[in-house]
């Protein structure tokens, strides 16, 4: 059963066994496993309930409806946009349906550095099998690969570089190109179409437009979840919510899960809460090709091919190096990719059909921290403190030069990026300018689509927030199953890693193990 906020007209009081906070990659999996095991389950999602019929493929409408903070959530210095879904299905509704596993070197890194001996490829294998089956993960079909992405593969092949086509969780995709705006065809198999409906069929009650504010520990093994029914859109408070339960599974995302735990007073004894943030920042690049080479970046699978020659994944540090991936489908956002205005900018936009767009992804080491303020209405204001390290900056610049060289090799005439002050590069002999790239607030807009790490796994409370079964170190029966548990960035796309980690923990829990 799915109950939307506008269907609630009075304060809500419930009793249940398990409460799942959030309905994205982790919350969906958790809800399904709890309901499958016969536990009375309530799912609380702050975002609204939207379906394919609501998705109109327009950025200006879909970003306010589906993204946290309308897509304007940033680090405190404004330099990095932190994109998260905030809707029924969470980020699985707005991602580009790329299915990448936790890299083997990352698991080895976690084993070596953090002693996480249970998180092995063997121990996760059954979870991959379950998740991949539920999501219909398979290699992307050739027919929906566009020129914007293929140019990466063709150029990589010519240069002898590693590159490949993503696996994806789509079904009958027509390649409309609007993954970032929610799939209007129900092709993207997010939790909104898989785990959540199945959980609902199994008896879970899913409430949308309900924000969780804090958790109160009652006597014995009981908890009370305090929340608020909010108005869709404005998210103004409407009615209070109280739910008594035995088990709470947090899946509100890396930014909001620790906020709820802190507001509940559970941060005492958990010194790592809100720390060790990885953002995996990326920059958008645009490359203007000759008129005859139509990229049509907005049609086809937006993010379907990667060039991974410069990945440097090792057990010593997990993900490293840098890589390129094609992107597409957002004219309003991509219009920002230059430093020009007036007729100069119009000249760039006139070449939109033969402009290639890609992202340069540069994995980071966990170095950010988080804090939060709460307004009088209970709305939380996250403060994501994040400083780029010198090592990352150097790797970014090396990556930028390499990507630009690669794009010139592919036939590009001019390369721009999402910086309002850094001018175009029009030939390889200008690449030395990248040495002075302005990696400073206000001078560049980086994007993080994979924020991780505020409640990382650790062997004890001194070094982590949750144990290897994703249970809080300092309280029984509270679990965390979202991206916040990752000790370091798990993969270049985090939906599958989150689901697999959640599946392993929730499957065990459901089996009573």
């Amino acid at each position, binding site marked *: 059963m799915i109950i*939307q*906020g*506008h269907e609630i*007209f009075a304060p809500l009081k419930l009793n249940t066994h398990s409460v799942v906070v959030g309905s994205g990659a982790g919350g969906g999996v958790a809800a399904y496993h709890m309901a499958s095991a016969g536990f009375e389950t309530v799912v609380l999602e702050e975002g*609204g309930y*939207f379906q394919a*019929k*609501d*998705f*109109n*493929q327009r*950025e*200006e*409408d879909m970003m*306010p*409806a589906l993204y946290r903070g*309308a897509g304007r959530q*940033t680090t405190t*210095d*404004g330099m990095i946009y932190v994109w998260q879904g905030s809707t029924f299905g969470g980020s699985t509704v707005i991602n580009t349906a790329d299915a990448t596993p936790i890299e083997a070197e990352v698991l080895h890194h976690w084993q070596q550095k953090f002693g996480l001996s249970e998180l092995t490829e063997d121990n996760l294998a059954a979870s991959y099998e379950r998740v991949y089956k539920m999501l219909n993960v398979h290699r992307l079909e050739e027919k929906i690969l566009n020129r914007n992405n293929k140019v990466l593969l063709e150029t990589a092949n010519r240069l002898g570089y590693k590159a490949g086509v993503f696996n994806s969780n789509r079904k009958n995709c027509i390649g*409309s190109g*609007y993954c970032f705006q929610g799939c*209007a065809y129900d092709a993207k198999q997010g939790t909104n179409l898989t785990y959540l409906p199945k959980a609902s069929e199994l008896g879970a009650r899913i409430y949308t437009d309900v924000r969780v504010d804090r958790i109160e520990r009652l006597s014995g093994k009981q908890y009370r979840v305090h929340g608020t029914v909010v*108005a*869709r*859109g*404005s998210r*103004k408070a*409407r*009615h209070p919510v109280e739910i008594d339960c035995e088990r709470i599974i947090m899946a509100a995302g890396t930014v909001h899960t620790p906020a709820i735990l802190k507001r509940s007073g559970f941060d005492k004894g958990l010194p790592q809460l809100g720390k060790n943030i990885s953002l995996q920042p990326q920059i958008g690049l645009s490359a203007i090709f000759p008129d005859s080479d139509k990229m049509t970046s*907005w*049609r086809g699978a937006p993010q379907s091919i990667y060039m991974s020659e410069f990945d440097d994944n090792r057990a010593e540090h997990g993900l490293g190096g840098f890589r390129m991936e094609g992107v597409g489908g957002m*004219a*309003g*956002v991509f*219009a*920002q990719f230059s*430093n020009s*205005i*007036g*007729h100069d*900018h*119009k*000249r760039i*936009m*006139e070449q*939109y*059909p033969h402009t290639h767009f890609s992202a340069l992804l540069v994995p980071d080491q966990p170095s950010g921290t988080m804090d939060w303020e709460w307004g009088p209405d209970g709305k939380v204001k996250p403060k994501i403190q994040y400083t780029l390290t010198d090592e990352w900056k150097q790797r970014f610049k090396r990556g930028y030069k390499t990507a630009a060289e690669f794009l010139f090799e592919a036939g590009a005439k001019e390369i721009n990026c999402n910086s*309002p*002050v*850094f*001018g175009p590069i029009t030939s390889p002999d200008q690449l030395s*300018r990248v040495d*002075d*790239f*302005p990696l*400073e*607030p*206000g*001078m560049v807009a980086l994007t993080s689509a994979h924020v991780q790490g505020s409640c990382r796994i650790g062997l004890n409370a001194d070094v982590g927030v949750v144990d290897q079964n994703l249970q809080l170190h300092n309280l029984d029966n509270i679990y965390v199953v979202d991206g916040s548990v990752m000790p370091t960035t798990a993969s270049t796309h985090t939906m599958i890693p989150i689901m697999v980690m959640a599946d392993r923990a929730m499957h065990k829990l459901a089996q009573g193990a």
Partner: protein
Amino acid sequence: MGNNNKLPSATRRLFLQRTLLALGAVAAAPALSTQALASTASTAMATPKLVVLTAEDYHTLSVVTDTLIPRGGAFPLGALDIDLAARIDAYLDPEDAELMQGLRGALVFLEHKAPALIAQQSNFSALPAADRETLLLTLRDAGGDATAVFVALRSLCFFYFYTDEQAWPNIGYEGPLVKRSRPVYPQVRG
């Protein structure tokens, strides 16, 4: 570093606020005279029915949009042809106080204070088009809050211009495959 050479590093280090929040600081900073504010009220431009912006905001923003996306050049359509300022007004959230404070601060700063950066006495909206473009590029390269104003206004204008269907034929973009209006949020009381 290309066109960024002129930025004093100390000024740039001071710019540590989210763009639109920084604009709020600009708004709160130098108080403008009543006369200066009043001078923007007189405008020859017809003002449509507005949701959030004042007539003064609208007037200045319209001139900004015209400077950023003028008519002619690579394609004929300009911001004024679609009344971009009104479109932006329709999308602004009146309850986002920080955003509104930031936007107002940016517009007031640009209209009244910024022209001094290029030794001009006039308000921004009274300058010739070439001088307005020069001023915006000066803001871009100045660093600090000036760059914040430039970035915020440019982002807002480009985003809402290129997401408008009237712009799409001009950039060779076919637009969405479905024709649907904005999602309707359920209206509730209490």
